[in-house]
């Protein structure tokens, strides 16, 4: 390498050394801190014994089971993804009464069973959101008696 190339290498590495750690640290700091009990881990979220309410949306390939330890108190939302979502990066949120994205519930990816602890007894609805496209994938309003 000649002197010019050595200098260019030096400049590139000084810039990398300054810029990349800032991006890495800021990116990790900005990851939203989700409540730990909302994480989707089958090992953690064992199926609650009592099925209280069942809502099916077979057009979208989704089944929603509201479960609890007894038939009076819903404490778990079981989502069964029968067919894969078109959007690979999908996040489940509560739908608030303004029909907007509410509290974060968890992540959905491939077909299967997902269980999330919930505190809201009667969810107004849920919203599946694509975090990459920043777009609503499915909006589902629940009918309660």
């Amino acid at each position, binding site marked *: 390498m000649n002197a010019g190339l050595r200098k260019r290498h030096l400049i590139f590495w000084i810039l990398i050394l300054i810029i*990349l750690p800032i991006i890495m640290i800021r990116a990790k700091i900005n*990851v939203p801190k989700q409540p730990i009990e909302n994480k989707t881990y089958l090992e953690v979220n064992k199926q609650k014994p009592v099925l209280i309410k069942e809502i099916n949306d077979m057009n979208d390939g989704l089944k929603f089971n509201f479960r609890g330890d007894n038939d009076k108190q819903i404490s778990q939302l079981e989502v069964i993804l029968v067919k894969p979502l078109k959007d690979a990066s999908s996040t489940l949120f509560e739908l608030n009464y303004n029909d907007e994205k509410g509290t974060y519930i968890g992540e959905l990816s491939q077909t299967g069973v997902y269980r999330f602890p919930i505190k809201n007894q009667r969810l107004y609805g849920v919203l599946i959101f694509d975090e990459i496209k920043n777009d609503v994938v499915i909006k589902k309003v629940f009918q309660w008696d």
Partner: protein
Amino acid sequence: MGLNYQLVLWNKNKKVYDRYILLFVLLYLVLFWAITLITNRNTTLETLTIRSSGTLAILLLHIILSIGPLARINTKFLPLLYNRRHLGVTMFLIALIHGGFSIFQFHMLGDVNPIYSVFTSNLDYSSLHDFPFQVLGFIALLILFAMAATSHDFWLANLSAKTWKALHMLVYVAYALIVSHVFLGAFQQETSPYMPALIGIGFVILVILHITAGIKEVRKDRQTYKASDTDWKYVCEIDEIEEDRAKIFIVDNERIAIFKYENKLSAIHNVCKHQGGPLGEGKIVDGCITCPWHGYQYLPQNGQSPPPFTEKVATYHVKIEDNKVYVLPKALEEGTEVTPAIIK
């Protein structure tokens, strides 16, 4: 070094090296797929492909970026440098699989052109959490494509060494874009701390290697002299130069390589015309100074590549007095014949 261009320049060494690359790639993919399928049976084929190719491309990029400084620090790594080009093209092809599958999975099902969708589906550039990280990966892929497509001596000769080198130094921009792509994208939903930690460790290793190699170069550059066509400069004792090897002497931050061979001394400019390799760290093979990076050769007495090759570097006058080597630190026209100093 070849006279005629071939689509892929394979020799015995490169074939062995390429087999190792292929073996490593297959082993990595098989292990990644096996471990993922054991721990998560529901993973889809597309997701497996995207993740395995993405992580493998990043790993290969770290290896590629390590080879340069490693070869500067320890000459044992020079064979890796000689074969680095094929590793670079392999890395691009794997990155292309990652990019292609990602675009297919995330953007093909919409009603707009998938490439247009990459750039327009998310415009939230002000948010770090929702940053359109795929754009960063796409730009990095374009840079890697330009590098892979021009990774051939045909382009090196036709673009000129300066332009070619400038283009290929964009690998650092690609690296920065890829790390940002990963941290602002995949790691925003990554619950395990291991993956970000691994990339962080990779970054630290690369920085340490490049800084160590840089410091070594700076130390060499410290003892520099002004160019002069009248003032002979003392270089060293004759015995300090090994047979068929060189001593490097620095003038105006440019390096002169003074070679000792067949009881003679000759001096040429240290920078190879091919890719800027350090000729003074090479040796005399078959009577020619041979670049340690890619084997380009020059005759010591005139700095010209042996016919039919046309590359040539600057030469310098050398003299010996009382077993002491002196150089006249003024570069002569490239390819100028200079009578070697005779060792008596």
